[in-house]
Structures are given as structure tokens and as C-alpha cells.
């Protein structure tokens, strides 16, 4: 990227999973959700409302291609084709560019619904930290949105900001969280709100010879603080959960918990039967969309488009 180094430090691991316990051919209703975000894209497939598969991949320069890629990975080697899917809903920043989707739903609604499914009906506040925005959503026990606030104006406090930082400091992005705690004393946070200014502040700290781990701690606490400002207006209620890529960065999450005085819910599936399924915080939006699709088809609100 910026330097000639071969390693791209911002690259986070992509993922996919297929449920070995389900045979989709026996399913009555197969629905899918595709969440095309600014940085990452996800697809989730449900068979009769049960999680069948999901994928998590990077968004490319072309939204329809990213949607096809995410969907392709999710159904890879399963024999499941687009023609077998009853209904597909697109969501996220690039939702209007999901070619296989029959309709779109805002990511606010999908994230609340997805988090409700993943973490359980006790969830009241969902914080989605996406690639280029962050959203705070309050919802009820059915995952219905009560109010929300979104900061999509700038990259401060977002996943992309963290990627830029990882690249700058030349540390793989998933190592930033753990390493930000390997410090003697919590350093003062990066003071600039703007990612571009924060970047030059980091360069200044590097020049001064501040240890890398301290700079990571300073950046993580700045990000936690920024997110807290957004949450303050809306109010945070337990159970409080974080979705999106930044949920995986304990450096930000733990500092946010400390500032708020509220713990985030444990990252485990609410459904006991799901306990050995991998828990992927980034799929909440796609999963929510697939759940909406399932509900719409089974309630007869929309017609199935399944061809075979």
C-alpha cells in the first residue's frame, strides 16, 4: 500500500461457513440477505429460518460484483443456486446495487433485527461499527427500531480509520487490540477527530519515539471516545451489543465499556442449538435481511421468486 512492503497490514481475514447439519434440499423456504458495505460485504442464507451459511468478504470497487462475490462464497460447493432462493433482500451502503435482491431494506432495520437473532431478545442497544460510518440503534424485544443515530459524515471512529492506522503503523489490524494493552500506563488519547489529522498526529508520535503499543492504545481510546459521544445522545441500555468489524477489536471495545460503565454482551449465539456455530459480528446486517425475507415470504407479504 503506502510503502513498498509486501504485507498489507489492513487486510483482515475473510470468512465463510456452511451449516453441516442442514440439507437445503429439504427446506421449504430459502432466503438470503446481502449486505454490501463500504469496506466489507456479507451474505447470509437461511433455510426455514435456520442459519444455513454466511460469508464475509471485502467490498471491491464495484458493488454488484461485491454482492455476487459474497453470495457466491456463501453458497460455494453446496449446490445451492440463485434459482433455488425464494427471496433475497439487499442492505447496506450499496444495497441498491445488489443484482440478485428483490428489494432493499435499510441497514439500520437489518442490524437491529440481526442482532436480536444473534444475541437474543434482551438486546436494547446495538452499535454497528462499520467501515465508513457508525450507527447507534435502540430496539425492542422483537428487534424493531425505536430510535437511531448515524454518523456517516466522516471516517472518524470507523473501521476504515482503523485500517488506515494499521497500515501507517505497520501492524496487522487484528493485532492492534491485544497489543494496545501491552503498555505500562494508559497514554493520552489521539486528540484529532479527523482521520487525516489523526494520521499526522500518529506520525508525530512515531517520530518522538513513543512506543508503538502506546500509540495503538492512544488511537483505540480516541476511537472509543468518539463512539461514546454518539451514544451519549441516544442513551445506551443493556443488553448492549456491538456489531461490525470493530467489535472484534478488544482495544476499542474494552475502552468503550470503561467509558460507558456498561459491559457489552458476550459474543455467543442466543440459541442454545447454535452454540458451536462460529460467531461472526460482521454478518448482523446480512442476517437481518435474510430474516426479514423469511418473515415476508412465510407471512405471504411477498411472492417467492424461486424457479427450481
Amino acid at each position, binding site marked *: 500500500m503506502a510503502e513498498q512492503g509486501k504485507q498489507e497490514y489492513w487486510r483482515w481475514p475473510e470468512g465463510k461457513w456452511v451449516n453441516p447439519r442442514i440439507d437445503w434440499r429439504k427446506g421449504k423456504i430459502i432466503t438470503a440477505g446481502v449486505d454490501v458495505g463500504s469496506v466489507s460485504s456479507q451474505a447470509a442464507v437461511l433455510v426455514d429460518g435456520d442459519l444455513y451459511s454466511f460469508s464475509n468478504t471485502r467490498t471491491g470497487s464495484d458493488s454488484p460484483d461485491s454482492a455476487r462475490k459474497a453470495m457466491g462464497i456463501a453458497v460455494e460447493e453446496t449446490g445451492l443456486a440463485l434459482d433455488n432462493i425464494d427471496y433475497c433482500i439487499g442492505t447496506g451502503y450499496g444495497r441498491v446495487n445488489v443484482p440478485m435482491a428483490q428489494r432493499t*431494506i*435499510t441497514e*439500520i*432495520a437489518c442490524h437491529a433485527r440481526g442482532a436480536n437473532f444473534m444475541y437474543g431478545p434482551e438486546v436494547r442497544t446495538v452499535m454497528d461499527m462499520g467501515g465508513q460510518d457508525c450507527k447507534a440503534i435502540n430496539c425492542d424485544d422483537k428487534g*424493531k*427500531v*425505536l*430510535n*437511531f*443515530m*448515524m*454518523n*456517516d*459524515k*466522516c471516517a472518524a471512529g470507523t473501521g476504515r480509520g482503523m485500517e488506515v492506522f494499521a497500515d501507517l503503523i505497520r501492524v496487522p489490524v487484528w493485532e492492534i487490540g491485544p497489543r494496545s494493552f501491552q503498555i505500562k500506563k494508559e497514554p493520552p488519547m489521539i486528540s484529532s*477527530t*479527523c482521520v487525516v489529522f489523526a494520521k499526522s498526529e500518529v506520525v508525530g508520535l512515531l517520530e518522538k519515539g513513543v512506543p508503538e503499543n502506546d500509540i495503538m492504545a492512544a488511537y483505540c481510546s480516541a476511537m472509543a471516545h468518539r463512539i461514546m*459521544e*454518539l451514544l451519549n*445522545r*441516544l442513551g445506551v441500555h443493556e443488553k448492549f451489543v456491538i456489531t461490525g468489524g470493530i467489535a472484534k477489536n478488544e482495544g476499542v471495545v474494552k475502552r468503550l465499556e470503561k467509558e460507558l460503565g456498561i459491559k457489552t454482551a458476550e459474543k455467543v449465539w442466543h440459541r442454545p442449538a447454535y452454540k458451536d456455530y462460529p460467531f461472526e459480528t460482521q454478518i448482523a446486517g446480512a442476517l437481518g435481511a435474510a430474516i*426479514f425475507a423469511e*418473515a*415476508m415470504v412465510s407471512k405471504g*407479504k411477498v411472492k417467492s421468486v424461486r424457479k427450481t
Partner: protein
Amino acid sequence: MQAFYGFKDGSGEWFVIIDADACNGCGKCVEVCPAHALEVGEDEFDPFSEKHHVRVKEGERKKIRYTCAPCQPGYGEEPPPCVAACEPGAISHSEAWLHAYAKK
């Protein structure tokens, strides 16, 4: 549901807040808005709701501070036209305009 349309940046919080439960979808605010920033449509945040309510147009959300500013100099003395037109009292604005544009 309470919807916050707008943004927050270093200069403050700029949000048009619409109480979707209180809104009756009459559209009077849409008619009086000089910037044509409002529209009545289906509930974007609840796909199962049949009710229509007012919302800020997508293209206006990221520049709402400037879109709404011309109506704000009297803030605190008289409400902006959309707020005045709303019978159920479903529209409000965040305080940043009050601080930035109110008559001193």
C-alpha cells in the same frame, strides 16, 4: 420510533428529529418546507409497518445543517415552518441551530 436525520461533526449535532409514531403522514410540513427537504413515505425502518410518515429526503441528510439554516434565525421566538405546521408535534430540531443561528 424516533428517527434522527442529519449528522454530527466537529461543529455540533445537526439533526431533524421525527417522531414516526406521532406523525400522521398528513404532509403539511412537506408543503411548507421552502427547501423541499421533506417527503412522506413508507417506514424505512420497519418493513412490516403499513403506516406512512414524513422523512428527510436521502440527499438532504448529509447537508441538513445548511438546508435548514434559512428557517432558523427566529429559532426560540417562532418555530420553523415545518414545526409550526405539524399538528401532532412530531418534528423537532437539535439544539445546534439555536446556538449557531438564533437572534443574539
